[in-house]
């Protein structure tokens, strides 16, 4: 069997599997999208142009768009839509940044690390100064910026342990709260829960001693992920 025949065979196999998806995508997404685009330039109206009425569809140029743009609230609606869409890139970029913070040490070493700390410090200080000189930040906005800046500074200083701890802290505290509730509900189980919790903290300590700080971090993250079960 020649190489080209083999490649064609693999391509055909791939297409066979992808075929239903491609056909579905074309039929249910691309064709309606294209038709919508075409219909936007016509006088199509489902009440007149259907199997019962049979009126002919006519091309009307930009008329539909002119009508849309002349609506007094059009720009407000557009602005509202864009405002709501702002969440999409923020979520994507935010997720990426969170992933990077959790997986890499971005602080560098030596002078680079000091430079990062200084840069973040300057950022936070600048924000405070802007607020003090009357820049129109709301109290909540300033608080969020300070929290964000402080987190970054702490992250540069304390490396990814800080980010991981912050990331898993809600889960950890939630579990802790649940344990507390359980203790209240059933005193008989409380000893077991406490014993288990102490045992797991001790396990983390043992890992730190045995495998150093990085090992301890990984162990802590893992135990947090397990929800200290």
């Amino acid at each position, binding site marked *: *069997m020649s190489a080209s*025949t083999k490649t064609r*065979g*693999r391509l*055909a*196999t791939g*297409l*066979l599997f992808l075929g239903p998806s491609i056909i579905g995508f074309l039929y249910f997404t691309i064709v309606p999208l294209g038709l919508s685009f075409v219909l936007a330039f016509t*006088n199509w*109206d*489902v*009440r*007149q142009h*259907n*199997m*019962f*009425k049979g*009126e002919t569809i006519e091309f009307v140029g930009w008329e539909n768009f002119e*009508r849309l743009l002349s*609506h*007094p*609230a059009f720009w407000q609606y557009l602005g509202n839509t864009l405002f709501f869409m702002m969440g999409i890139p923020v979520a994507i970029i935010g997720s990426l940044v969170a992933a990077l913070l959790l997986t890499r040490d971005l602080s560098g070493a030596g002078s680079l690390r000091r430079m990062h700390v200084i840069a973040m410090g300057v950022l936070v200080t600048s924000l405070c100064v802007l607020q003090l000189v009357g820049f129109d930040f709301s109290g909540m906005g300033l608080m969020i910026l300070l929290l964000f800046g402080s987190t970054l500074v702490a992250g540069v200083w304390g490396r990814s342990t800080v980010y991981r701890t912050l990331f898993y802290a809600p889960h950890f505290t939630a579990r802790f709260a649940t344990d507390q509730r359980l203790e209240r509900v059933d005193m008989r189980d409380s000893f077991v829960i406490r014993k288990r919790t102490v045992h797991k903290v001790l396990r983390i300590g043992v890992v730190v001693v045995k495998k150093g700080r990085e090992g301890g971090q990984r162990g802590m993250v893992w135990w947090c992920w397990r929800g200290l079960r």
Partner: protein
Amino acid sequence: MGPISHLLETEPDIKYILLSALGLLILATIADQFSRRAEVADRPVLYWVTDVNAARVAEMELFQSWMAENDYPSFEIRLDSSNSDVSKKLIQGVSGVEADILSLVRDEAWLLQSTGMMADVLPLAEKHGFTVDQAWPAAAEAFMIDGQQVGFPRGTPVQAYFLNVDLLKQHGQPIPSLDWTLEEFEAAGLAFVAAANADEERQKYFFCDNINVLPLRRGLGRSMFNETMTRATRDNPESARVLHLVHKWIYEDRIIPTQADLDFFAGSDTNTSRIQLFRQGRYALLTAARYSVVQLREGPAMELVARPLPHGGFPNGLLGTGSVGIYTKSPHQELAAYLLKFFASETYNMSVVRSSDSMPPVPKYTQIEEYLRPADYPNEWGVHGVMADMMEMAIPVCASPFVLPSAANRIEAEFRLGVLADVYTSEEGVALADKFINREIELNISKNPQLAAKHARLLADQAEINRLRAAGELVPIELITNPFHRRYYVVQGWAKLP
């Protein structure tokens, strides 16, 4: 070398998975086909797109026993609630694959009839006796469209206020009269919220849950459209006054809750939550129709009376109609007509009398003792008779043939809410609503030559009406197509009746 043989050579394990999947699909197809054959073999199956609940299932059981008792042809009706959204009805209808029978709620009858997908059931109605004269006269507007009968009502709810009698007594407030004005409504509302919230840090109690601007505007002699429904006519001081009053009652007098109040109460504004809040005494008055009684019967009995909405000189009521129509491409139109015949029957109307699920579609059943004073519910005796009387002054929502009701209502709501949110003044709100609805009318006319011809003809009628009114002469009632104006002209003595 084909792709399948290539795949099987390179990935030998996958062939078992693929073959298993194929075998399962073949078996499922065979089983599906056999089950369908078994289902349709004995008698025809008709599909009815409607909401499905316990009441509807009971209704179907009653229908089947009524069919058997009368020795009518045997067929099965299957309820389909998954396609009851209006957009699904529309798309499936114009695609030729709609169910045989359709429930038409709110303004759906006008929309679906305008596409040509609803059958004109007039010949079947004459044959089976569910003609327009069987139903409430006011309800006819909702299923007689452009001279075609698109169905028959299965319920005719009229909007009213239900009053919590014990709560009003508790705060020393009188029961309003049946014919109360806007000023009396406002005074009663202010007195109630002052008395009910006297010991509260934050206002907890409101006079009513909501108020509908449409009957208020009609009460001041104004309608959404002119006499021939060729143009929107909200741009006038009376319509602006209504919006101003509603704004005042919500934000200044605080007799009606704001959206923030509603969120604070329940986190939602569903019918169920409104009824629960009414039960708890948060509202003295509940916007309701007779079907609300069904939910109010659950739990401890409440002493209830019904009252029409207050008016500014012209008492009226807002009528909503839930009709049932037949799809024009249904191969079972003759059989489907039996369901419409059932809605006009004594069996069905008496079941509605007992269940209080709505107003009986045939008026004579509201004049019997069982309707007026249900033996098991003496606490409701102040409701049913008032609701029946209100049907006499009820007027359906005006639906111009030149603009879809859904479009007109959307525009109206947009600017009404804009006024309530202080984006527009009352005067701006009504002017802008008129402007955009009229623009929609012009657009529809420009796209449809038949509609344009009809519009031109009715504009000539409108000019004649205006001339007669200016001259102080009576206007022939047949010139007026707007149901509100037809009634208003008669009451004012401006109409020349045939």
